């Protein structure tokens, strides 16, 4: 039982990342009708917002350490962040320690700007073009963004740790009455799950309870009619693109302590998130979220060694297998609408 609870936790955690990315993808698709292959790149850029901020905080000058030498025999130089000079060492190191959560504030404006620039500068010219063209141009953009990041940050993963107080793990088993060490879960992953829940909730609330959201939802259902009502839907859609970019970016920021970010992390998620969106049903926000969690949990169960021993290789294919089964039994995914992206 405890093993199962653990895997459900894992599934929720993985599902959070899938759901956040798929949510943005669906927003863009549902509102703008654009298949955005650069969405994974937005996730990656979000992660590198965190990297950038923590590097900015750690900008240093060199101070020689007396009595020690480096690998070439020269005097050893130690880095001292400027931030220590400004705020003192204690506050300075605390700020560096909290770089990832602080990056949220940094990433929101950056990601919205990136999203809006992307939409106004490129994507808007492709609304009336075939999906194949959209795929090609956004894929090209994804490659470009990725290569630019690689040029400045290299190809290796860059460790971006969580604040000290969120490192380590929590023993949830004790709370549930199990033995110690039976259900251990990393604190930061719990934070990630909570964060994802808040972001998803906020997006739904925004769409549900604001006039802006109502117009956008109406636009998702029937773009032309809303346009006929004289509402400037395009402007709102631009903002939606910014919002979707911000959601992907935040997912990326918070993901950095879980796995050290690298330039191709977006591509790693891209295909999976498309599968999630389609399994959820094109154009359905709740579908995307539900499918994200569903696939996350199933993936976790499939990686249990009892399951692998039973069906070798199942952990390699589970997501795709489930996607096939769902698409064959439910023609438009879990909650898809008729006629969307079927031609």
């Amino acid at each position, binding site marked *: 039982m405890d093993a199962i609870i653990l895997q459900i936790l894992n599934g929720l955690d993985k599902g959070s990342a899938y759901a956040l990315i798929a949510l943005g993808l669906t927003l863009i698709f549902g509102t703008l009708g654009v298949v955005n292959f650069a969405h994974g790149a937005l996730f990656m850029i979000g992660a590198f917002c965190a990297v950038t901020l923590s590097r900015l905080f750690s900008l240093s000058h060199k101070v020689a350490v007396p009595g020690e030498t480096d690998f070439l025999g020269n005097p050893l130089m130690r880095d001292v962040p400027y931030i220590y000079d400004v705020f003192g060492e204690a506050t300075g190191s605390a700020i560096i320690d909290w770089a990832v959560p602080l990056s949220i504030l940094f990433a929101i404006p950056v990601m919205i700007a990136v999203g809006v620039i992307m939409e106004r500068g490129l994507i808007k010219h492709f609304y009336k073009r075939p999906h*194949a063209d959209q795929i090609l*141009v956004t894929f*090209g953009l994804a490659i470009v963004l990725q290569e*630019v990041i690689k040029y400045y940050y290299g190809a290796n993963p860059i460790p971006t740790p969580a604040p000290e107080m969120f490192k380590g793990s929590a023993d949830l088993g004790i709370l549930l009455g199990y033995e110690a060490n039976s259900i251990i879960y990393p604190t930061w992953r719990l934070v990630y799950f909570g964060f994802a829940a808040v972001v998803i909730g906020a997006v739904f609330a925004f769409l549900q309870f604001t006039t802006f959201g109502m117009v956008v939802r109406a636009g998702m259902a029937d773009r032309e009619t809303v346009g006929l009502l004289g509402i400037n839907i395009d402007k709102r859609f631009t903002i939606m693109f910014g919002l979707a970019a911000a959601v992907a970016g935040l997912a990326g920021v918070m993901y950095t302590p879980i796995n050290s970010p690298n330039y191709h992390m977006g591509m790693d998620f891209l295909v999976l998130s498309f599968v999630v969106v*389609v399994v959820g049903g094109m154009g359905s926000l709740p579908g995307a979220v539900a499918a994200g969690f569903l696939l996350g949990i199933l993936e976790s169960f499939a990686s249990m060694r009892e399951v692998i021993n039973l069906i070798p290789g199942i952990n*390699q294919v589970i997501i795709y297998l489930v996607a096939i089964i769902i698409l064959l039994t439910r023609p438009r995914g879990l909650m898809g609408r008729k006629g969307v992206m079927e031609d």
Partner: protein
Amino acid sequence: MFGLETKDAKLLLLVVALTMLAPFLLNPFPVDSAMAQFNAGYPDLMQRFVIFGIFAIGFNILFGLTGYLSFGHAAFLGVGSYAAVWMFKLLSMNVLPAIVLAVITSGLFALLIGYISLRRSGIYFSILTLAFAQMMFALAYSVLTPITGGETGLQLALDDPRILGTSATAEGNIPVPGLFGLEMRDTTEVAMGVWSFTFNVGYYFSAVIMLLAFYLSIRIFRSPFGMMLRAIKSNQTRLNYTGLNTKPYTLAAFVISGMYAGLAGALMASMDPLAGAERMFWTASGEVVLMTILGGVGTLIGPVLGAGAIKYMENIISKINSEILHSWFAFLPDGFEDFIVAIIYPFVGKGWHLTLGIIFMLVVTFLPGGLVEGGQRIAKLFKGKKADANGPKGKTEPAE
């Protein structure tokens, strides 16, 4: 001519001329010149041009005609390669049985996967094909290692049984693929003045097969079957209410294009007897989509051009390193040289992906019809100048 209309026959003749003269056309720069870096007339790359041309031509029969976007087509290429290498291992190093088996095997896989995937359309179809291909990749890389060679790829060994042939040559090496004694890797190099041209058996063999494949694709485009496929893309509802069953049409197109992919895979294995699982990864499927769109979807020649462009980038641009750049601009004053090199460097060598991405964006933004449209625009310019003299070169029109 050849049962084709004049326009198509001209195009075919043009392609024949281009492929047969490729060793010359692709090596336009003298061997010792700085521009020799841009020569693409060596066997491996020439083979790749035509092999990926076949792959893209086949893909275009499905995507260009019916509009069904398969995102897992590389799986059939991989299946074809594995089948071919197994034939080399078990039967003989002759490429013909390998190609035949590969085409049949990939056709069977396409029949199965197509039958299931074609129950859905649009993006749901794309994701189904993607899912099948990713499953095949993942399994080939891991649990199927005994059959596929896993990470290393399936390769020949000195102890292969090879019923019709020897396990090893007299010198103790693994025999190489051939066609009745003609080895695929046989190459003759001809130097003419400062130029040097390479003629390779494997290339010409693949080129002839590519021409056949291209010819067949023209016939399919112009046939009633091809017309039905275009009708499917245009309006499935009307087709259904005209008494036509779209399912067998799309399935036939899917299987044919899967067999093209298998043929390409078999040729890859014939040129280089190794089959790696990465051939089936989604990026490989994406690549053929990009080739087709880049060249011009639904046009006859477009996919071949797209395949050529991407393979050229991958193999030529990626090899330009900073040393070569410096040698090009060595004539400039030192500081200026470094400046120019610093500007170009991010786009070549290891930055070739960046250039590729930019080209995708530029082409799709400014040439919605792909490279073919670019060709037509240039042709138009020429036409304006000298009124229809022999018909402009490279003129290709969309199939519609």
